[in-house]
């Protein structure tokens, strides 16, 4: 990118250029056709895709390109090997994020995505695996990327994936005895009444199962009687 005009110049030579004076100069390469003005070169990884295809063949199911970003669909049972290959051979050393997606479709209802970064190549990569409702088992990548530990716990908590060989498969956010997975599409937004108890309203009382106990007339009271009358009115 050529040096832009001085933004304080009263008669800039190229006013259009000034609009992007403060934006990064990371533009898509010449070989990339994209209509997305914000597309970055960092999300295109054709060399890595070729290497993956060579190594894993049919386990690389599909490559999707949207907004100049490559998404690689891989076979669910090979995800750990794919991650290990990417980390050890291709330099994707930074595990950014992992999470679930609920498409609410009859087949391949869920997806798990993996965002990886190579600090050496300065490239980003998104992997996805498709998970059918009938078989929620996904190999854990904690062995490859230790940072995936809590992300997998979160995905288990919210969607109910069971990550095989996860070292600590507990829920991340919800209580351990909670029966549901709240980010599934069928879960009502206000929750299931009675599934999450409130604490007792007295020190030695029972748990409050009604989430709107106060609105239904059961307000907690202090442990001593509050005065009924004003003392100064006597």
């Amino acid at each position, binding site marked *: 990118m050529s040096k832009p005009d001085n933004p304080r110049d009263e008669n800039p030579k190229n006013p259009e250029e000034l609009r992007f004076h403060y934006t990064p100069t990371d533009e898509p390469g010449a070989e990339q056709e994209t209509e997305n003005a914000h597309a970055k070169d960092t999300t295109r990884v054709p060399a890595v895709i070729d290497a993956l295809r060579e190594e894993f063949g049919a386990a690389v199911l599909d490559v999707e390109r949207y907004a100049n970003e490559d998404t690689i669909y891989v076979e669910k049972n090979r995800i750990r090997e794919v991650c290990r290959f990417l980390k050890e051979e291709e330099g994707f050393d930074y595990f950014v994020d992992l999470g679930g997606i609920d498409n609410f479709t009859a087949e391949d209802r869920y997806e798990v995505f993996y965002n990886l970064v190579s600090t050496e190549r300065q490239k980003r990569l998104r992997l996805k695996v498709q998970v059918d409702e009938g078989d929620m088992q996904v190999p854990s990548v904690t062995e490859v990327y230790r940072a995936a530990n809590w992300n997998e716990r979160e995905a288990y908590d919210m969607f*109910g994936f069971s990550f095989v060989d996860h070292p600590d498969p507990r829920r991340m*956010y*919800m*209580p351990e005895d909670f*029966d*549901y*997975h*709240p980010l*599934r599409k*069928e*879960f*009502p*937004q*206000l*929750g*299931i*009444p*009675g*599934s*999450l*108890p*409130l*604490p*007792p*309203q*007295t*020190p*030695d*009382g029972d748990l*409050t*199962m*009604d*989430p*709107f*106990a*106060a609105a*239904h*007339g*059961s*307000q*907690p*009271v*202090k*442990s*001593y*009687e*509050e*005065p009924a009358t*004003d*003392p*100064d009115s006597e």
Partner: protein
Amino acid sequence: MAGSSGTNGQGFFTTRVDTFLNWARSNSLMPMPMGLACCAIEMMGFAGPKYDSARFGSEAMRFSPRQADLMIVAGWCSYKMSHAIRRVWDQMGDPKWCIAMGACASTGGMHRCYGVVQGVDNFLPVDVYISGCPPRPESVLHALMDIQEKIRNEYSVVQDYEFGKARERAPIMPENTNRFPGQLEKPKTSTLTLEAPDADDAEEASTPEPVAA
């Protein structure tokens, strides 16, 4: 209080024990800062030098419930956290007071969802609610002054020695003895299935008991 002077010309005041105790209590509140979210930042402003809750004698934030007598619940409270808050509240010695600070602590606020308690007054006896998201420190000062006003109007001695015996069991309204009041039955999800890890447990846990008419 009434002023008087003794035989030797020394001035003294006569007062009721109640008034004296309330005066002392209301000007030495020690808040337990239950900071849960962004309201806690405003609560720090309330305690800091600019807004200066020391003017009201409550600058000593006590992180030990045994030393505190005013709980400021600042921020949204999840169902998981609510049990810890109630436990801390139970550990605070009587007499104690409670401020629900901000929209989330008072009503759940914008978090109308499965994980956030829709108002801490479902499990805590709240004395003063503060509106705002988050409230400004002046609002917290105002709430503190309201608490002081409330304390000054209490029968401290009578409360402690006549009505003061701890209640065996606070009255729980009949609605709360049912697990599910009528308007809160499990939503009808005939077309959707709710999956649970253990089908038997889930059925047992989520089947509403019949509501007494």
